[in-house]
């Protein structure tokens, strides 16, 4: 090898930059790769139009819409309650929080109060959903790193237990359709509460086991630390919410800020990250699960008796007065909001979903630039998208 070839290579290795040396005979040849829509790492039908210099990403354009069915138009052409089962299909892992966000928006629109026991049940179910979603994410992220099978199966084993609880309560594992305007559809039986309490009490042991397996793993750290680092200013400007925002160190959790439901009654902490990289995003979710367990245990300890549905709530012939409302909650992926405009008819004049994973994808290109394709896969995995919600 001649000397002139060695020096740029050496400087490239020492600087740590992934750019190709200028003396490389193929310098400047860019390759366009279309990742997806059927790539297994995209978690659905999602496409990344990637431009590569060698293996380094120099441009990335996300392409959506493969699952678009104009959810909002359907919402405008049906009654308020008619959209409730359809919100399950937005983010099909977290139907309970989608239900809650929609019910909250309609309750704000109509000025509908909610009984105390229903609010407690909503908190319990939302935190169980958070456990479910973050557990799945931890499994999927490891799968995206190339760790086939084992972590995902550990995660799915626990997910099944939560889904069994949802099925016992609502009749459906994933499409729960459980919240109503002014409460919940059914009450939880003492047996269900006992089973849910048992699961929650044992969840910490599962997290310990999982963390022993994964968190300190050298390969995971090498693959994720420093990958896809995000600055707090950019995250705020881009409207990033949820664990992805808090991984950058911004203290913004709607459970604390808005204090909706009965969250101010419970004691919990909001974990914050330091670097905003993929590892922090993973770690924040693990820590959030531990806080969720605390919230559920407090809710079980103080769960009041009473009805779960406001007796004056109107389900049939529901016509809110003209007006509008934007209701939002802290979903497992970020802020999920519903914006409704009523003109006094049984159907909403405008029905809008503010999907967290759609907005969180705004920064996908910024996070991936300068990284390799294999890193783009885990960055996308750590953003945590569900295409049912992105495409609507």
């Amino acid at each position, binding site marked *: 090898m001649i000397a002139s070839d060695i020096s740029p290579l050496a400087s490239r290795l020492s600087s740590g930059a992934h750019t190709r040396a200028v003396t490389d005979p193929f310098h400047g040849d860019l390759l366009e790769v279309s990742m997806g829509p059927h790539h297994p790492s995209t978690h659905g039908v999602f496409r990344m139009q990637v431009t590569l210099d060698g293996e380094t990403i120099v441009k990335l354009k996300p392409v959506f819409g493969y699952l678009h069915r104009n959810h909002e138009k359907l919402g405008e052409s049906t009654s308020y309650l008619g959209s409730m089962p359809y919100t399950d299909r937005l983010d099909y892992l977290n139907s309970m929080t989608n239900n809650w966000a929609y019910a909250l928006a309609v309750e704000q629109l109509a000025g509908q109060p909610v009984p105390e026991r229903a609010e407690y049940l909503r908190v319990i179910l939302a935190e169980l959903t958070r456990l479910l979603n973050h557990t799945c994410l931890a499994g999927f992220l490891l799968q995206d790193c190339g760790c086939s099978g084992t972590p995902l199966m550990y995660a799915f084993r626990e997910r099944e237990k939560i889904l069994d609880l949802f099925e016992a309560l609502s009749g459906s594992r994933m499409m729960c359709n459980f919240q109503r305007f002014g409460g919940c559809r059914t009450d939880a039986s003492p047996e269900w509460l006992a089973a849910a309490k048992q699961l929650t009490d044992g969840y910490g042991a599962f997290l310990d086991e999982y963390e022993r397996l994964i968190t300190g793993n050298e390969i995971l750290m090498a693959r994720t630390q420093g990958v896809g680092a995000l600055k707090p200013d950019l995250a*705020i*400007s881009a409207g990033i919410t949820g664990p992805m925002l808090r991984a950058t160190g911004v203290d913004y959790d709607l459970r604390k800020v808005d204090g909706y439901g009965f969250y101010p009654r419970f004691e919990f902490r909001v974990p914050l990250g330091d670097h905003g990289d993929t590892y922090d995003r993973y770690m924040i979710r693990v820590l959030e699960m531990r806080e969720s367990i605390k919230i559920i245990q407090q809710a079980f300890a103080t769960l009041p008796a009473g009805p779960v549905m406001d007796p004056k709530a109107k389900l049939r012939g529901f016509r809110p007065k*003209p007006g509008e409302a934007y209701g939002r909650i802290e979903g497992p992926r970020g802020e999920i909001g519903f914006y409704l405009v009523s003109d006094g008819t049984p159907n909403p004049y405008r029905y809008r979903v503010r999907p967290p994973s759609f907005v969180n*994808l705004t920064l996908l290109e910024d996070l991936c630039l300068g990284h390799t394709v294999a890193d783009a896969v885990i960055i996308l995995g750590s953003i945590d998208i569900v295409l049912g919600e992105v495409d609507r």
Partner: protein
Amino acid sequence: MEPLEQLHARLLSAFPGAEISIVNNPGPAAQHSLLLPAALAREIAFFLRDDPALRLDYCSNVTGIDWLKAGHIEVVYHLYSMALKHGPVIIRLRTANRTDAVTLPSLTPVWRACEFQEREVFDLYGVVFDGHPDLRRILMWDEFKDHPMRKDYIEPDDYEWEPTPHGAIHDKAKAHYPAAVTPAEGAAKP
């Protein structure tokens, strides 16, 4: 956070002569909003973001509403402050009509969060955002013609129909066959 009336008065003193008005929300939610003039919208948005008492650094939700009877399309922005943890301040922009004057200034230079959501409003409502860095369709495919969230949108009979060379051949072939017999008539004959 300061009441909306006070914010309105402050905006009027900062932007003298601007037609800023409060849109009243008669519902129980009582989330009133500010209607901004399109020409000054971006300056006012920068003011809302940078004002030390407001610091509305987070644009949560961007959406369109098609007011068919009033004859304009409205774009609604829900703003919050992550720094001071308050909100929402809701601002609205209106197009002049629904057909040829549908241009509004893009607020993506102010809040990056508007980038995809304004593309979505462009895609589904046909509002053109002036100054948007990458205004393309986002949910519908690029060749799609209409804006499906508009109230007067009529869906095509077949979304996936496209002309093929066989269409003309089939039309020509029809001339060689006798007029179609309905199944009921055909069944009656032995």
